[in-house]
């Protein structure tokens, strides 16, 4: 029996073959490859070396295959059509054969869009089937152009991928048949979780008469966590994950253990399906799982030792061999002694396990899920570009609109109206804010009742004639303010309210009432008794005279996962007794300061700060969860990559509480979106102060499956004096678009993370002095006024820090509504 490779021999002899996948590193370190090889050797008949899977640049498959070979593990070199044209492909194949590579898997390759070089020009000169034909041509002694190969001809044991789970289903077997006709001798399939559908595929393959012509190896991937399966179910095109499996992983006490069990069970099931000649285990970046799976599936020991010819290169370097040998020996020891270390190393190397686990062959590869690293890079570039464009664009848009109006006079009336509205509204609001400020100051002096139960038609309004008086009062109490921090809660608003109708007497209603046609969706936060909803408004903020203002505004109190380092004393004095324990801290907020929700800011996990691990975050969240029963808003460090890791685990802890997780940014919307769907959690969608980016993120999230009623938009806010006007204008434009332009993708409520912005400003930290006034009151005023401004722009839930600022903000809200 003539065989070219060990894998072929195993299959031809009728043994049940085992192959697995090995992902080369994203650097030039061959030791990593050697370590992985050591782990796998003896447990698999051959190892697939991926060719820059998901279009991320890695150690080349060709070179990695040579290393595997020199380590005594037979490689299956993967070759894609993405990066090389027919010239490059043929050249590499000649080289690979010459150096002793015998197994070849022919793939089309993932589109560069999914990788870390989306700017690259995709080649795709050939497709996988044409590549198979090319390899067949080699066997027959000709290049793809028909020219004869004079001398040694590559004669690869050629394989291809097949995806029984992609659409259109019926055509999948036909395409498999095409691959077989083109020269595929073995097939490795997409990951099988839905064994029934796979069985059906195999039946169709039998009807086509394919089972005698090709060895089919079923793709197996041990699920590593609930998050990973959920991600695969919702985000990976061409992969079917049964609900039963999701449930098992969700309930598993030890998800990794359960994942291995599942893999073993699937192996046992597919083994019984006629025509399945082996399995292909894809546990990328979890190679340690492979030996365990193989053992438990009863596939160890392997029937035959491979007789591997070391590649030509190694033969030559006999003298160097000693040097090479030594470190290898050491590594073996390490592996044996500290398997945990090895695992950690691997995880560090490719932190986003989901993709990894998934990365695989290319057709099966559809798993791609998009590399987070690449998205981050792209977003960073985009952001820089967008910032430059923004200022210019805005100016130009205005100018052009004006030009069109003037020159063409064709502007539809409707749009003109919107324009006018945009111009008018800020004026009104500015006026209002001005009044608010005066009122706040007034508060200190005059104690009155708070009008909590104001009728919807009533609007706070102070007679024009009163204004001069108020102004005088502002000057006088200046010094008094200093001592009155404690009084904030006790005071209220002075002023007689007259509803708009009375004030507008004599005017017809249609002159001042302009009802919107949109409605902001309601988002439920938390579960159970303390749950509440935000959103639901059909009018601009506080325009109660025009219609339903929806749910009341809410304020969450923020705590950190670590002891704050840069908070001024005026803020820390309220919490310093509980800083050591996030649970107690949260409890104090709820019990003493009556917080309706708690925002947990996992700042300590920031890789650029303390880089605390996931475990830390989980512990903090657990403590908070157990200490309080109000809804939680879990806010990651803002590092897109780290947040995926952290929030996925955190979600597991707070899943049953319906807590909010965030911030989700464009770079991690797929993974975190999937997490949110899996646990049915609302999310914070953060975008960098831009109407279109906010909208785009909402659309992206909806595409992933996160409905608008689970989205809180974080437009990225600025503190008073720190760009609040920019935030204000963007929020206002979003809200006007949502209500008046029926832009349904923007009809989500706003969440404003105020405390963090305010308490990092220079002004809140400056000491008391005559010019700047009392330090604490200054901080309180900054936080409260920032919040009120943002409420006027449309904010509906705010995360704040200072208890007194919260009180003050509430007084102001109540008097406005």
């Amino acid at each position, binding site marked *: 029996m003539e065989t070219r490779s060990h894998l072929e021999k195993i299959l031809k002899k009728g043994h049940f073959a085992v192959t697995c996948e090995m992902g080369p590193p994203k650097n030039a370190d061959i030791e990593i490859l050697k370590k992985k090889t050591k782990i796998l050797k003896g447990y698999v008949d051959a190892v697939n070396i991926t060719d820059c899977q998901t279009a991320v640049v890695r150690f080349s498959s060709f070179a990695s295959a040579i290393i595997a070979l020199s380590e005594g593990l037979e490689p299956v070199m993967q070759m894609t059509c*993405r990066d090389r044209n027919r010239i490059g492909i043929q050249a590499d194949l000649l080289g690979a054969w010459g150096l002793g590579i015998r197994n070849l898997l022919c793939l089309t390759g993932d*589109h560069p869009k999914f990788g870390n070089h989306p700017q690259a020009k995709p080649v795709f000169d050939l497709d996988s089937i044409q590549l198979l034909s090319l390899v067949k041509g080699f066997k027959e002694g000709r290049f793809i152009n028909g020219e004869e190969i004079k001398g040694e001809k590559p004669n690869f044991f050629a394989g291809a991928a097949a995806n029984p789970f*992609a*659409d259109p289903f019926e*055509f999948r077997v036909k395409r498999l048949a095409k691959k077989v006709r083109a020269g595929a001798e073995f097939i490795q399939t997409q990951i099988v979780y839905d064994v029934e559908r796979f069985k059906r595929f195999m039946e169709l393959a039998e009807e086509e008469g394919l089972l005698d012509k090709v060895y089919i190896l079923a793709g197996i991937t041990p699920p590593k966590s609930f998050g990973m399966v959920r991600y695969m179910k919702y985000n990976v*095109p061409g992969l079917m994950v049964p609900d039963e499996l999701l449930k098992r992983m969700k309930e598993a006490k030890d998800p990794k253990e359960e994942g291995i069990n599942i893999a073993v069970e699937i192996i046992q099931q597919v083994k019984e399906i006629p025509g399945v000649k082996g399995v292909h285990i894809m546990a990328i970046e979890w190679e340690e799982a492979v030996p365990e799976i193989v053992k438990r599936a009863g596939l160890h020991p392997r029937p035959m030792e491979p007789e591997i010819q070391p590649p030509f290169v190694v033969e030559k370097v006999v003298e160097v061999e000693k040097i090479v040998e030594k470190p290898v020996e050491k590594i073996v020891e390490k592996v044996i002694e500290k398997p945990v270390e090895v695992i950690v190393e691997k995880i560090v190397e490719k932190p986003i396990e989901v993709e990894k686990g998934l990365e695989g062959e290319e057709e099966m590869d*559809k798993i791609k899920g998009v590399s987070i690293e690449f998205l981050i890079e792209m977003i960073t570039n985009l952001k820089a570009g967008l910032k430059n464009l923004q200022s210019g664009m805005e100016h130009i848009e205005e100018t*052009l609109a004006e030009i069109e109006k003037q020159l063409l006079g064709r502007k539809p009336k409707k749009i003109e109206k919107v324009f006018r509205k945009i111009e008018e509204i800020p004026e009104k609001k500015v006026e209002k804010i001005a009044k608010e400020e005066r009122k706040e100051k007034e508060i200190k002096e005059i104690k009155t009742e708070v009008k909590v139960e104001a009728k919807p038609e009533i609007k706070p309004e102070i007679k024009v004639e009163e204004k001069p008086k108020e102004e005088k009062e502002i000057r006088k109490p200046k010094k008094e303010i200093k001592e009155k921090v404690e009084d904030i809660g006790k005071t209220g608003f002075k002023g007689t309210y007259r509803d708009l109708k009375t004030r507008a007497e004599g005017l017809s209603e249609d002159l001042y009432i302009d009802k919107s046609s949109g409605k902001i969706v309601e988002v439920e936060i938390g579960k159970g008794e303390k749950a509440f909803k935000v959103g639901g408004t059909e009018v601009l903020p506080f325009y109660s005279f025009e219609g339903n203002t929806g749910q009341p505004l809410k304020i969450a109190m923020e705590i950190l996962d670590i002891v704050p380092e840069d908070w001024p004393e005026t803020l820390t004095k309220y919490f310093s007794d509980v800083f050591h324990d996030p649970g107690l801290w949260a409890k104090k907020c709820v019990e003493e300061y009556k917080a309706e929700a708690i925002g947990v800011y996992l700042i300590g996990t920031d890789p650029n700060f303390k880089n605390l691990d996931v475990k830390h975050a989980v512990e903090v969240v657990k403590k908070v969860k157990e200490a309080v029963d109000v809804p939680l808003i879990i806010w990651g460090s803002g590092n897109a990559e780290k947040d995926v890791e952290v929030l996925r685990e955190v979600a597991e802890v707070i899943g049953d509480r319906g807590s909010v997780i965030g911030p989700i940014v464009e770079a991690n919307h797929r993974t975190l979106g999937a997490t949110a769907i899996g646990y049915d959690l609302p999310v914070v969608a953060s975008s960098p102060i831009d109407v279109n980016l906010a909208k785009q993120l909402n659309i992206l999230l909806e595409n992933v499956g996160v409905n608008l009623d689970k989205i809180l938009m974080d437009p990225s806010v600025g503190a008073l004096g720190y760009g609040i006007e920019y935030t204000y204008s963007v929020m206002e434009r979003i809200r006007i678009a949502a209500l008046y332009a029926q832009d349904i993708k923007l009809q989500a409520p706003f969440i404003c993370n105020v405390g963090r912005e305010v308490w990092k400003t220079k002004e809140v930290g400056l000491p008391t002095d005559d010019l700047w006034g009392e330090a604490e009151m200054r901080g309180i005023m900054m936080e409260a006024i920032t919040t009120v401004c943002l409420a006027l722009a449309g904010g509906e839930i705010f995360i704040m820090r200072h208890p007194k600022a919260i009180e003050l903000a509430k007084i102001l809200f109540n008097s406005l509504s």
Partner: protein
Amino acid sequence: MIVAERRHLSEILKNIEPYNKVLILGCRGCVAICSTGGDREVEIIATALRIARKRQGKPLITYEATLIRQCDPEYLANLPELMKDAEAVVSLACGVGVNLIADLYPDIRVYPGVDTLFFGANTQLGVWQEKCRGCGDCIIDLTAGLCPIARCPKNLLNGPCGGSQNGKCEINPENPCIWHLIIERLTARGELDKLNEIWEPKDWRTYLGESPRKRIREDLIKNNKREG
């Protein structure tokens, strides 16, 4: 039609920075139809440039003209006349127009006012979609009129790839998987067997291999000579 998109104003401004008098030259061909470079856009861009320059404190004088086509020497004949007072021209035609001006009038400083995108159809008001890549070797007779070269991101000839799900393309789920559509159409026509054949690698010479490409019709050249 050839679909183009206006360049960002700042880029145009940068190009014409040294000049005080500029001709904005539109084209009534494709770019007018895709609302990028017709009479209306010439007027808008000229105005916008003037305003922007005024704000920079360097007022600009613009001349406006729109030719029937910029891809035809005949219509470009009076360009020198139009350029009498101008120091440079910003062409709102596709790249063909800009190149032809540059070919014909080496002394005229011509700058592109648009980015030329693709050959597309105006599928709804405000939306243009690529339908053809001009690869020079049409294959859509075999694919029910739907072009996998232009409309499959991997330009597969033996598709669909494993990323086809529910008829959508994994690269951009807003787009249909064109191979899914091809299979549907051919199935309906009872011609699906056509796809069982392995499609040979494409000969790309007609596309990029021998560029710039040229088309010659001897008969027309001869007729022209005779008449002339």
